[in-house]
Protein backbone atom coordinates (compact mmCIF):
# COMPACT_ATOMS: atom_id res chain seq x y z
CA UNK A 1 0.00 0.00 0.00
CA UNK A 2 1.36 3.39 -0.99
CA UNK A 3 0.82 6.39 1.20
CA UNK A 4 0.08 9.69 -0.49
CA UNK A 5 -1.54 10.41 -3.81
CA UNK A 6 -1.26 8.26 -6.92
CA UNK A 7 -2.80 9.44 -10.18
CA UNK A 8 -2.57 7.29 -13.30
CA UNK A 9 -3.88 8.04 -16.76
CA UNK A 10 -6.26 10.74 -15.57
CA UNK A 11 -8.56 12.31 -18.14
CA UNK A 12 -10.99 15.07 -17.21
CA UNK A 13 -13.49 16.70 -19.51
CA UNK A 14 -16.30 19.24 -19.33
CA UNK A 15 -19.51 19.17 -21.33
CA UNK A 16 -20.85 16.39 -23.47
CA UNK A 17 -20.73 15.45 -27.15
CA UNK A 18 -20.05 18.44 -29.38
CA UNK A 19 -19.34 20.78 -26.44
CA UNK A 20 -16.88 18.40 -24.84
CA UNK A 21 -13.68 20.08 -23.78
CA UNK A 22 -10.81 17.89 -22.72
CA UNK A 23 -9.26 19.67 -19.73
CA UNK A 24 -6.76 17.02 -18.62
CA UNK A 25 -5.25 14.34 -20.87
CA UNK A 26 -3.63 11.18 -19.63
CA UNK A 27 -1.85 12.66 -16.63
CA UNK A 28 0.09 10.42 -14.25
CA UNK A 29 1.49 11.87 -11.07
CA UNK A 30 2.60 10.69 -7.65
CA UNK A 31 2.86 12.57 -4.42
CA UNK A 32 4.51 10.47 -1.72
CA UNK A 33 3.37 11.03 1.85
CA UNK A 34 5.22 13.86 3.54
CA UNK A 35 6.49 15.39 0.32
CA UNK A 36 5.39 18.53 -1.39
CA UNK A 37 4.80 18.69 -5.13
CA UNK A 38 4.02 21.73 -7.23
CA UNK A 39 1.86 21.76 -10.33
CA UNK A 40 2.84 24.60 -12.62
CA UNK A 41 1.26 25.85 -15.80
CA UNK A 42 -0.64 28.70 -17.36
CA UNK A 43 -4.36 29.28 -17.09
CA UNK A 44 -6.29 26.58 -18.89
CA UNK A 45 -3.48 24.06 -18.57
CA UNK A 46 -5.68 21.85 -16.40
CA UNK A 47 -3.67 22.12 -13.20
CA UNK A 48 -6.57 23.21 -10.98
CA UNK A 49 -8.87 20.72 -12.67
CA UNK A 50 -6.71 17.88 -11.37
CA UNK A 51 -7.31 19.08 -7.80
CA UNK A 52 -11.04 19.38 -8.46
CA UNK A 53 -11.22 15.86 -9.89
CA UNK A 54 -9.26 14.52 -6.94
CA UNK A 55 -11.62 16.12 -4.41
CA UNK A 56 -14.73 15.01 -6.28
CA UNK A 57 -15.83 18.53 -7.24
CA UNK A 58 -15.63 17.43 -10.87
CA UNK A 59 -17.13 14.05 -11.59
CA UNK A 60 -16.49 13.69 -15.32
CA UNK A 61 -13.14 11.91 -15.23
CA UNK A 62 -11.63 8.57 -16.12
CA UNK A 63 -8.44 6.88 -15.07
CA UNK A 64 -7.11 5.74 -11.76
CA UNK A 65 -6.69 7.82 -8.61
CA UNK A 66 -5.83 6.64 -5.14
CA UNK A 67 -5.16 8.26 -1.81
CA UNK A 68 -3.28 6.32 0.87
CA UNK A 69 -3.83 3.10 -1.06
CA UNK A 70 -7.56 3.58 -1.37
CA UNK A 71 -8.88 3.76 -4.92
CA UNK A 72 -11.26 6.64 -5.48
CA UNK A 73 -14.64 6.16 -7.10
CA UNK A 74 -17.18 8.73 -8.20
CA UNK A 75 -18.23 9.58 -4.67
CA UNK A 76 -16.10 10.64 -1.76
CA UNK A 77 -16.67 9.44 1.77
CA UNK A 78 -16.45 11.55 4.91
CA UNK A 79 -13.28 9.59 5.71
CA UNK A 80 -11.75 10.92 2.50
CA UNK A 81 -12.48 14.50 3.49
CA UNK A 82 -10.91 13.73 6.83
CA UNK A 83 -7.72 12.95 5.02
CA UNK A 84 -7.70 15.40 2.11
CA UNK A 85 -8.55 19.09 2.29
CA UNK A 86 -8.16 22.02 -0.04
CA UNK A 87 -7.35 25.73 0.15
CA UNK A 88 -8.79 27.83 -2.64
CA UNK A 89 -7.25 30.57 -4.71
CA UNK A 90 -9.34 33.59 -3.96
CA UNK A 91 -9.84 34.24 -0.25
CA UNK A 92 -12.52 36.78 -1.16
CA UNK A 93 -14.60 34.05 -2.82
CA UNK A 94 -13.94 31.08 -0.59
CA UNK A 95 -15.64 32.35 2.56
CA UNK A 96 -19.41 32.63 2.81
CA UNK A 97 -20.12 36.39 2.95
CA UNK A 98 -22.70 36.08 5.73
CA UNK A 99 -20.96 33.53 7.95
CA UNK A 100 -18.64 34.63 10.73
CA UNK A 101 -15.31 32.90 11.30
CA UNK A 102 -16.90 31.13 14.24
CA UNK A 103 -19.76 29.83 12.10
CA UNK A 104 -17.41 28.60 9.39
CA UNK A 105 -15.20 26.69 11.80
CA UNK A 106 -17.92 25.31 14.04
CA UNK A 107 -19.90 24.04 11.07
CA UNK A 108 -16.79 22.33 9.71
CA UNK A 109 -16.11 20.70 13.07
CA UNK A 110 -19.74 19.60 13.37
CA UNK A 111 -19.68 18.06 9.91
CA UNK A 112 -16.65 16.02 10.88
CA UNK A 113 -18.43 15.02 14.09
CA UNK A 114 -15.69 16.44 16.26
CA UNK A 115 -16.38 17.33 19.90
CA UNK A 116 -14.92 20.06 22.02
CA UNK A 117 -15.79 22.73 19.45
CA UNK A 118 -14.87 25.77 21.56
CA UNK A 119 -11.41 24.59 22.44
CA UNK A 120 -10.70 23.44 18.91
CA UNK A 121 -11.75 26.73 17.32
CA UNK A 122 -9.48 28.70 19.61
CA UNK A 123 -6.53 26.41 18.97
CA UNK A 124 -7.13 26.41 15.20
CA UNK A 125 -7.13 30.20 15.18
CA UNK A 126 -3.92 30.18 17.18
CA UNK A 127 -2.35 27.69 14.79
CA UNK A 128 -2.94 29.90 11.78
CA UNK A 129 -1.73 32.96 13.67
CA UNK A 130 -5.05 34.75 14.01
CA UNK A 131 -5.79 34.83 17.71
CA UNK A 132 -9.21 34.60 19.30
CA UNK A 133 -10.21 38.20 18.75
CA UNK A 134 -10.94 37.26 15.14
CA UNK A 135 -13.38 34.54 16.08
CA UNK A 136 -16.62 36.44 15.67
CA UNK A 137 -15.71 38.59 12.73
CA UNK A 138 -17.37 38.45 9.35
CA UNK A 139 -15.33 38.14 6.14
CA UNK A 140 -15.79 41.80 5.26
CA UNK A 141 -14.02 42.70 8.51
CA UNK A 142 -10.92 40.75 7.47
CA UNK A 143 -8.06 41.51 5.10
CA UNK A 144 -7.15 39.16 2.26
CA UNK A 145 -4.36 37.54 4.24
CA UNK A 146 -6.58 37.08 7.29
CA UNK A 147 -9.27 35.50 5.14
CA UNK A 148 -6.77 33.08 3.68
CA UNK A 149 -5.71 32.17 7.22
CA UNK A 150 -9.34 31.40 8.03
CA UNK A 151 -9.56 29.24 4.90
CA UNK A 152 -6.44 27.39 6.02
CA UNK A 153 -7.91 26.93 9.50
CA UNK A 154 -11.06 25.49 7.93
CA UNK A 155 -8.98 23.08 5.86
CA UNK A 156 -7.05 22.01 8.95
CA UNK A 157 -10.12 21.56 11.16
CA UNK A 158 -10.56 17.91 10.23
CA UNK A 159 -6.84 17.29 10.81
CA UNK A 160 -6.13 16.05 7.29
CA UNK A 161 -2.80 14.57 6.22
CA UNK A 162 -2.95 15.92 2.68
CA UNK A 163 -3.54 19.54 1.76
CA UNK A 164 -4.33 20.59 -1.80
CA UNK A 165 -3.37 24.21 -2.38
CA UNK A 166 -4.93 25.94 -5.36
CA UNK A 167 -2.88 29.12 -5.92
CA UNK A 168 -3.20 30.01 -2.24
CA UNK A 169 -1.26 33.26 -2.52
CA UNK A 170 -1.88 34.56 -6.02
CA UNK A 171 -4.59 36.99 -4.90
CA UNK A 172 -2.41 38.46 -2.13
CA UNK A 173 0.20 41.19 -1.90
CA UNK A 174 3.83 40.02 -1.79
CA UNK A 175 4.31 40.89 1.86
CA UNK A 176 1.16 38.97 2.79
CA UNK A 177 2.19 36.18 0.46
CA UNK A 178 5.39 35.80 2.46
CA UNK A 179 3.40 35.46 5.69
CA UNK A 180 1.08 32.81 4.22
CA UNK A 181 3.97 30.87 2.66
CA UNK A 182 5.79 30.89 6.01
CA UNK A 183 2.63 29.71 7.72
CA UNK A 184 2.22 26.89 5.21
CA UNK A 185 5.78 25.70 5.69
CA UNK A 186 5.45 25.87 9.49
CA UNK A 187 2.21 23.90 9.40
CA UNK A 188 3.75 21.32 7.15
CA UNK A 189 6.57 20.79 9.57
CA UNK A 190 4.34 20.67 12.66
CA UNK A 191 1.72 18.37 11.22
CA UNK A 192 3.77 16.30 8.76
CA UNK A 193 1.48 17.37 5.93
CA UNK A 194 1.64 16.35 2.30
CA UNK A 195 1.17 19.24 -0.13
CA UNK A 196 0.03 19.27 -3.70
CA UNK A 197 0.21 22.89 -4.74
CA UNK A 198 -1.00 24.50 -7.92
CA UNK A 199 0.53 27.79 -9.00
CA UNK A 200 1.58 29.81 -11.99
CA UNK A 201 4.42 31.38 -10.03
CA UNK A 202 7.57 29.30 -10.27
CA UNK A 203 9.31 31.09 -7.41
CA UNK A 204 6.41 30.40 -5.04
CA UNK A 205 6.30 26.74 -5.96
CA UNK A 206 10.07 26.43 -5.70
CA UNK A 207 9.92 27.91 -2.23
CA UNK A 208 7.40 25.44 -0.87
CA UNK A 209 7.90 22.25 -2.89
CA UNK A 210 10.60 19.68 -3.56
CA UNK A 211 9.57 18.70 -7.03
CA UNK A 212 7.60 20.32 -9.77
CA UNK A 213 5.33 19.03 -12.52
CA UNK A 214 4.89 21.33 -15.50
CA UNK A 215 1.61 21.23 -17.40
CA UNK A 216 0.55 22.63 -20.74
CA UNK A 217 -2.75 22.18 -22.57
CA UNK A 218 -3.94 19.50 -20.17
CA UNK A 219 -0.82 17.39 -20.49
CA UNK A 220 2.11 16.85 -18.21
CA UNK A 221 5.16 18.28 -19.96
CA UNK A 222 7.84 17.24 -17.53
CA UNK A 223 8.62 16.65 -13.88
CA UNK A 224 11.76 18.03 -12.34
CA UNK A 225 13.28 18.66 -8.95
CA UNK A 226 13.43 22.13 -7.49
CA UNK A 227 17.24 21.97 -7.53
CA UNK A 228 17.14 21.46 -11.29
CA UNK A 229 14.62 24.23 -11.65
CA UNK A 230 16.77 26.68 -9.74
CA UNK A 231 19.75 25.68 -11.85
CA UNK A 232 17.58 26.32 -14.94
CA UNK A 233 18.12 22.70 -16.01
CA UNK A 234 14.86 22.07 -17.78
CA UNK A 235 14.64 19.61 -20.66
CA UNK A 236 11.52 20.80 -22.38
CA UNK A 237 11.44 24.07 -24.34
CA UNK A 238 8.13 25.04 -22.73
CA UNK A 239 9.59 24.81 -19.23
CA UNK A 240 12.57 26.85 -20.34
CA UNK A 241 10.25 29.49 -21.74
CA UNK A 242 8.34 29.62 -18.45
CA UNK A 243 11.58 29.94 -16.54
CA UNK A 244 12.77 32.72 -18.78
CA UNK A 245 9.56 34.73 -18.51
CA UNK A 246 9.48 34.42 -14.74
CA UNK A 247 12.87 36.09 -14.45
CA UNK A 248 11.38 39.40 -15.55
CA UNK A 249 11.09 41.43 -18.72
CA UNK A 250 13.87 41.17 -21.25
CA UNK A 251 14.06 43.92 -23.84
CA UNK A 252 14.20 42.53 -27.35
CA UNK A 253 13.03 43.28 -30.85
CA UNK A 254 11.42 39.96 -31.51
CA UNK A 255 7.67 40.05 -31.12
CA UNK A 256 5.82 36.80 -30.95
CA UNK A 257 2.65 36.72 -32.96
CA UNK A 258 -0.86 35.91 -32.00
Amino acid at each position, binding site marked *: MTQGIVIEGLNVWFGEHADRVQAVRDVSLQVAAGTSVGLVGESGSGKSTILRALTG*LVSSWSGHMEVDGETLGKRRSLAFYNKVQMVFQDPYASLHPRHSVDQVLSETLALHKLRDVDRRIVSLLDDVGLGRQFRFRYPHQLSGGQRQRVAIARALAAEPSILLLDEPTSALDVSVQAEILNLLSDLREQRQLTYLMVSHNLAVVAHLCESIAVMQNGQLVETLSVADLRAMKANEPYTQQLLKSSMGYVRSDEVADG
Partner: protein
Amino acid sequence: MSSLKLWLNSESPESRAQARAAAIYHGWLEFKTNRLALLGLLILVLLVLIAIFAPWLSPHDPFEQSLGNRLLPLGTEGHVLGTDSLGRDILSRLIYGSRITLYIVGLVALIAPILGLFIGTVAGYIGGWTDTVLMRFTDIFLAFPRLVLALAFVAALGAGIENAVLAIALTAWPPYARIARAETLSIRRSDYISAVKLQGAGALRIITRHIWPLCIASLVVRITLDMAGIILAAAGLGFLGLGARPPSPEWGAMIAEGRRFILDYWWVATIPGIAIFIVSLAFNLLGDGLRDLLDPKSGGAS
Protein backbone atom coordinates in the same frame (compact mmCIF):
# COMPACT_ATOMS: atom_id res chain seq x y z
CA MET B 1 -19.78 57.38 22.97
CA SER B 2 -21.96 55.31 25.27
CA SER B 3 -20.79 51.89 26.38
CA LEU B 4 -23.52 50.24 24.32
CA LYS B 5 -22.30 51.96 21.18
CA LEU B 6 -18.76 50.99 22.02
CA TRP B 7 -19.84 47.40 22.47
CA LEU B 8 -21.66 47.44 19.13
CA ASN B 9 -18.79 49.05 17.25
CA SER B 10 -16.17 46.73 18.66
CA GLU B 11 -13.75 45.48 16.00
CA SER B 12 -13.36 42.15 17.77
CA PRO B 13 -16.64 40.93 19.21
CA GLU B 14 -16.37 38.44 22.02
CA SER B 15 -19.50 36.39 21.51
CA ARG B 16 -21.89 35.27 18.83
CA ALA B 17 -24.61 37.52 20.23
CA GLN B 18 -22.38 40.58 20.11
CA ALA B 19 -21.29 39.86 16.54
CA ARG B 20 -24.89 39.48 15.44
CA ALA B 21 -26.05 42.58 17.29
CA ALA B 22 -23.24 44.58 15.75
CA ALA B 23 -24.17 43.37 12.27
CA ILE B 24 -27.78 44.42 12.81
CA TYR B 25 -26.71 47.76 14.29
CA HIS B 26 -24.49 48.57 11.33
CA GLY B 27 -27.28 47.61 8.96
CA TRP B 28 -29.56 49.99 10.81
CA LEU B 29 -27.03 52.83 10.57
CA GLU B 30 -26.83 52.23 6.83
CA PHE B 31 -30.62 52.07 6.50
CA LYS B 32 -31.07 55.23 8.51
CA THR B 33 -29.28 57.30 5.90
CA ASN B 34 -32.10 56.64 3.43
CA ARG B 35 -34.78 59.13 4.51
CA LEU B 36 -37.53 57.85 2.21
CA ALA B 37 -37.07 54.24 3.28
CA LEU B 38 -37.27 55.43 6.87
CA LEU B 39 -40.54 57.18 6.05
CA GLY B 40 -41.86 53.95 4.52
CA LEU B 41 -40.90 52.02 7.63
CA LEU B 42 -42.53 54.64 9.84
CA ILE B 43 -45.82 54.42 7.94
CA LEU B 44 -45.83 50.64 8.19
CA VAL B 45 -45.05 50.69 11.91
CA LEU B 46 -47.90 53.12 12.30
CA LEU B 47 -50.17 50.79 10.34
CA VAL B 48 -49.28 47.90 12.62
CA LEU B 49 -49.96 50.03 15.71
CA ILE B 50 -53.29 51.17 14.29
CA ALA B 51 -54.26 47.57 13.59
CA ILE B 52 -53.31 46.47 17.10
CA PHE B 53 -55.12 49.32 18.86
CA ALA B 54 -58.07 49.48 16.47
CA PRO B 55 -60.79 49.10 19.15
CA TRP B 56 -59.37 52.03 21.14
CA LEU B 57 -58.60 54.25 18.16
CA SER B 58 -61.81 54.00 16.17
CA PRO B 59 -64.49 56.49 17.22
CA HIS B 60 -67.38 54.20 16.20
CA ASP B 61 -68.25 50.55 15.69
CA PRO B 62 -67.27 49.88 12.06
CA PHE B 63 -70.36 47.72 11.51
CA GLU B 64 -72.93 49.94 13.18
CA GLN B 65 -75.41 51.19 10.60
CA SER B 66 -77.31 54.41 10.96
CA LEU B 67 -79.47 55.09 7.97
CA GLY B 68 -80.23 58.60 9.16
CA ASN B 69 -76.56 59.51 8.82
CA ARG B 70 -76.00 58.16 5.32
CA LEU B 71 -73.25 59.58 3.08
CA LEU B 72 -72.21 62.40 5.38
CA PRO B 73 -69.44 64.54 3.88
CA LEU B 74 -65.87 64.90 5.15
CA GLY B 75 -65.39 66.87 8.33
CA THR B 76 -68.84 66.18 9.78
CA GLU B 77 -68.95 66.39 13.56
CA GLY B 78 -68.21 62.88 14.91
CA HIS B 79 -67.46 61.49 11.44
CA VAL B 80 -64.20 63.13 10.33
CA LEU B 81 -64.02 61.12 7.13
CA GLY B 82 -67.74 60.99 6.58
CA THR B 83 -70.00 57.95 6.40
CA ASP B 84 -70.85 55.41 3.71
CA SER B 85 -74.17 54.44 2.12
CA LEU B 86 -75.29 52.59 5.24
CA GLY B 87 -74.23 55.37 7.59
CA ARG B 88 -71.14 53.55 8.87
CA ASP B 89 -68.21 55.70 9.96
CA ILE B 90 -65.53 55.55 7.23
CA LEU B 91 -62.63 56.32 9.59
CA SER B 92 -63.54 53.43 11.88
CA ARG B 93 -63.92 51.09 8.93
CA LEU B 94 -60.55 52.22 7.62
CA ILE B 95 -58.95 51.53 10.99
CA TYR B 96 -60.43 48.07 11.26
CA GLY B 97 -59.66 47.46 7.57
CA SER B 98 -55.96 47.85 8.32
CA ARG B 99 -56.18 44.55 10.22
CA ILE B 100 -57.46 42.80 7.11
CA THR B 101 -54.81 44.42 4.94
CA LEU B 102 -52.07 43.29 7.31
CA TYR B 103 -53.58 39.82 7.50
CA ILE B 104 -53.53 39.51 3.71
CA VAL B 105 -50.05 40.94 3.36
CA GLY B 106 -48.64 38.84 6.19
CA LEU B 107 -50.13 35.60 4.98
CA VAL B 108 -49.11 36.09 1.35
CA ALA B 109 -45.63 37.17 2.45
CA LEU B 110 -45.38 33.98 4.43
CA ILE B 111 -46.63 31.52 1.81
CA ALA B 112 -45.46 32.77 -1.58
CA PRO B 113 -41.77 33.52 -0.98
CA ILE B 114 -41.18 30.38 1.05
CA LEU B 115 -42.74 28.23 -1.64
CA GLY B 116 -40.78 30.10 -4.29
CA LEU B 117 -37.53 29.96 -2.33
CA PHE B 118 -37.86 26.23 -1.79
CA ILE B 119 -38.69 25.37 -5.39
CA GLY B 120 -36.18 27.80 -6.87
CA THR B 121 -33.20 26.79 -4.77
CA VAL B 122 -33.84 23.06 -5.11
CA ALA B 123 -34.22 23.41 -8.88
CA GLY B 124 -31.12 25.57 -9.15
CA TYR B 125 -28.89 23.52 -6.91
CA ILE B 126 -29.79 20.01 -8.02
CA GLY B 127 -30.19 20.90 -11.68
CA GLY B 128 -30.78 18.31 -14.40
CA TRP B 129 -34.22 16.73 -14.57
CA THR B 130 -35.38 18.18 -11.26
CA ASP B 131 -34.64 21.64 -12.57
CA THR B 132 -36.44 21.07 -15.86
CA VAL B 133 -39.58 19.66 -14.24
CA LEU B 134 -39.79 22.30 -11.49
CA MET B 135 -39.13 25.21 -13.77
CA ARG B 136 -41.65 24.11 -16.43
CA PHE B 137 -44.17 23.80 -13.61
CA THR B 138 -43.26 27.35 -12.60
CA ASP B 139 -43.60 28.52 -16.20
CA ILE B 140 -47.15 27.17 -16.34
CA PHE B 141 -48.09 29.30 -13.33
CA LEU B 142 -46.24 32.29 -14.74
CA ALA B 143 -48.09 32.05 -18.02
CA PHE B 144 -51.50 32.81 -16.43
CA PRO B 145 -52.45 36.41 -15.75
CA ARG B 146 -52.37 36.71 -11.99
CA LEU B 147 -55.81 38.11 -11.36
CA VAL B 148 -57.46 35.65 -13.73
CA LEU B 149 -55.78 32.72 -12.02
CA ALA B 150 -56.78 34.12 -8.64
CA LEU B 151 -60.33 34.45 -9.91
CA ALA B 152 -60.32 30.82 -10.99
CA PHE B 153 -59.04 29.74 -7.56
CA VAL B 154 -61.63 31.79 -5.72
CA ALA B 155 -64.35 30.52 -8.04
CA ALA B 156 -63.28 26.95 -7.25
CA LEU B 157 -62.73 27.43 -3.52
CA GLY B 158 -65.50 29.88 -2.83
CA ALA B 159 -65.36 33.59 -2.05
CA GLY B 160 -63.84 34.76 1.23
CA ILE B 161 -60.76 36.48 2.52
CA GLU B 162 -58.84 33.25 3.28
CA ASN B 163 -59.40 31.91 -0.19
CA ALA B 164 -58.45 35.23 -1.72
CA VAL B 165 -55.18 35.16 0.21
CA LEU B 166 -54.52 31.59 -0.85
CA ALA B 167 -55.31 32.45 -4.46
CA ILE B 168 -52.95 35.45 -4.41
CA ALA B 169 -50.20 33.44 -2.73
CA LEU B 170 -50.50 30.64 -5.24
CA THR B 171 -50.18 33.06 -8.12
CA ALA B 172 -47.40 35.11 -6.54
CA TRP B 173 -44.74 32.45 -5.98
CA PRO B 174 -43.38 31.83 -9.51
CA PRO B 175 -41.36 35.05 -9.76
CA TYR B 176 -39.76 34.25 -6.39
CA ALA B 177 -38.85 30.79 -7.63
CA ARG B 178 -37.21 32.33 -10.69
CA ILE B 179 -35.21 34.82 -8.63
CA ALA B 180 -34.14 32.16 -6.14
CA ARG B 181 -33.08 29.84 -8.95
CA ALA B 182 -31.06 32.53 -10.69
CA GLU B 183 -29.31 33.41 -7.42
CA THR B 184 -28.64 29.74 -6.70
CA LEU B 185 -27.10 29.20 -10.11
CA SER B 186 -24.62 31.98 -9.50
CA ILE B 187 -23.89 30.84 -5.94
CA ARG B 188 -23.59 27.10 -6.39
CA ARG B 189 -20.32 27.18 -8.31
CA SER B 190 -18.64 29.56 -5.90
CA ASP B 191 -15.64 28.50 -3.88
CA TYR B 192 -17.38 28.74 -0.52
CA ILE B 193 -19.94 26.17 -1.62
CA SER B 194 -17.14 23.94 -2.93
CA ALA B 195 -15.35 24.38 0.37
CA VAL B 196 -18.32 23.23 2.43
CA LYS B 197 -18.84 20.31 0.04
CA LEU B 198 -15.29 19.29 0.82
CA GLN B 199 -16.28 19.10 4.48
CA GLY B 200 -18.80 16.44 3.48
CA ALA B 201 -21.94 18.60 3.66
CA GLY B 202 -25.01 17.24 1.87
CA ALA B 203 -27.35 19.01 -0.53
CA LEU B 204 -30.00 19.78 2.09
CA ARG B 205 -27.52 21.44 4.39
CA ILE B 206 -25.94 23.46 1.60
CA ILE B 207 -29.31 24.67 0.35
CA THR B 208 -30.76 25.61 3.72
CA ARG B 209 -27.69 26.93 5.49
CA HIS B 210 -25.57 28.37 2.72
CA ILE B 211 -27.80 29.24 -0.21
CA TRP B 212 -30.95 30.40 1.56
CA PRO B 213 -29.33 33.17 3.60
CA LEU B 214 -27.97 34.67 0.38
CA CYS B 215 -31.24 34.36 -1.55
CA ILE B 216 -33.38 35.75 1.22
CA ALA B 217 -31.94 39.24 0.83
CA SER B 218 -33.07 39.66 -2.74
CA LEU B 219 -36.38 37.95 -1.98
CA VAL B 220 -37.15 40.30 0.90
CA VAL B 221 -36.54 43.24 -1.39
CA ARG B 222 -38.76 41.75 -4.05
CA ILE B 223 -41.52 40.96 -1.54
CA THR B 224 -41.68 44.49 -0.19
CA LEU B 225 -41.78 45.84 -3.73
CA ASP B 226 -44.54 43.33 -4.58
CA MET B 227 -46.57 44.10 -1.49
CA ALA B 228 -48.20 47.05 -3.17
CA GLY B 229 -49.33 44.75 -5.97
CA ILE B 230 -50.60 42.19 -3.49
CA ILE B 231 -52.65 44.77 -1.61
CA LEU B 232 -54.06 45.94 -4.91
CA ALA B 233 -54.84 42.38 -6.01
CA ALA B 234 -56.62 41.74 -2.72
CA ALA B 235 -58.47 45.01 -3.15
CA GLY B 236 -59.27 44.01 -6.72
CA LEU B 237 -60.73 40.72 -5.60
CA GLY B 238 -62.65 42.55 -2.91
CA PHE B 239 -63.86 45.03 -5.50
CA LEU B 240 -65.11 42.20 -7.70
CA GLY B 241 -66.90 40.73 -4.70
CA LEU B 242 -64.64 37.67 -4.63
CA GLY B 243 -62.54 38.59 -1.63
CA ALA B 244 -63.84 39.92 1.64
CA ARG B 245 -67.62 39.55 2.08
CA PRO B 246 -69.83 42.66 2.35
CA PRO B 247 -69.96 43.79 5.97
CA SER B 248 -66.18 43.38 6.32
CA PRO B 249 -64.32 46.72 6.11
CA GLU B 250 -61.74 45.49 3.60
CA TRP B 251 -60.42 48.51 1.69
CA GLY B 252 -61.05 47.12 -1.79
CA ALA B 253 -64.60 46.14 -0.90
CA MET B 254 -65.14 49.65 0.49
CA ILE B 255 -64.11 51.14 -2.84
CA ALA B 256 -66.46 48.78 -4.66
CA GLU B 257 -69.29 49.92 -2.45
CA GLY B 258 -68.48 53.59 -2.90
CA ARG B 259 -68.30 53.19 -6.65
CA ARG B 260 -72.06 53.49 -6.97
CA PHE B 261 -72.07 57.03 -5.64
CA ILE B 262 -68.67 58.13 -6.93
CA LEU B 263 -70.02 61.16 -8.80
CA ASP B 264 -72.07 62.65 -5.97
CA TYR B 265 -70.24 61.32 -2.91
CA TRP B 266 -66.64 60.96 -4.12
CA TRP B 267 -65.03 60.53 -0.71
CA VAL B 268 -66.70 57.18 0.00
CA ALA B 269 -64.55 55.49 -2.65
CA THR B 270 -61.60 57.88 -2.53
CA ILE B 271 -60.68 57.63 1.15
CA PRO B 272 -59.98 53.86 1.13
CA GLY B 273 -58.24 54.39 -2.21
CA ILE B 274 -55.88 56.89 -0.58
CA ALA B 275 -55.25 54.42 2.26
CA ILE B 276 -54.28 51.72 -0.24
CA PHE B 277 -52.09 54.21 -2.04
CA ILE B 278 -50.24 55.28 1.12
CA VAL B 279 -49.58 51.75 2.32
CA SER B 280 -48.45 50.60 -1.14
CA LEU B 281 -46.14 53.57 -1.37
CA ALA B 282 -44.73 52.82 2.08
CA PHE B 283 -43.93 49.27 1.04
CA ASN B 284 -42.25 50.49 -2.14
CA LEU B 285 -40.12 53.02 -0.28
CA LEU B 286 -39.10 50.42 2.26
CA GLY B 287 -38.32 47.96 -0.53
CA ASP B 288 -36.04 50.45 -2.25
CA GLY B 289 -34.20 51.11 0.97
CA LEU B 290 -33.82 47.42 1.70
CA ARG B 291 -32.50 46.82 -1.79
CA ASP B 292 -29.72 49.32 -1.23
CA LEU B 293 -28.98 47.66 2.07
CA LEU B 294 -29.28 43.96 1.34
CA ASP B 295 -28.52 43.46 -2.32
CA PRO B 296 -25.00 42.02 -2.39
CA LYS B 297 -24.54 43.27 -5.93
CA SER B 298 -24.91 46.91 -5.05
CA GLY B 299 -22.03 47.08 -2.60
CA GLY B 300 -23.55 45.72 0.58
CA ALA B 301 -23.12 45.92 4.27
CA SER B 302 -19.39 46.30 4.60
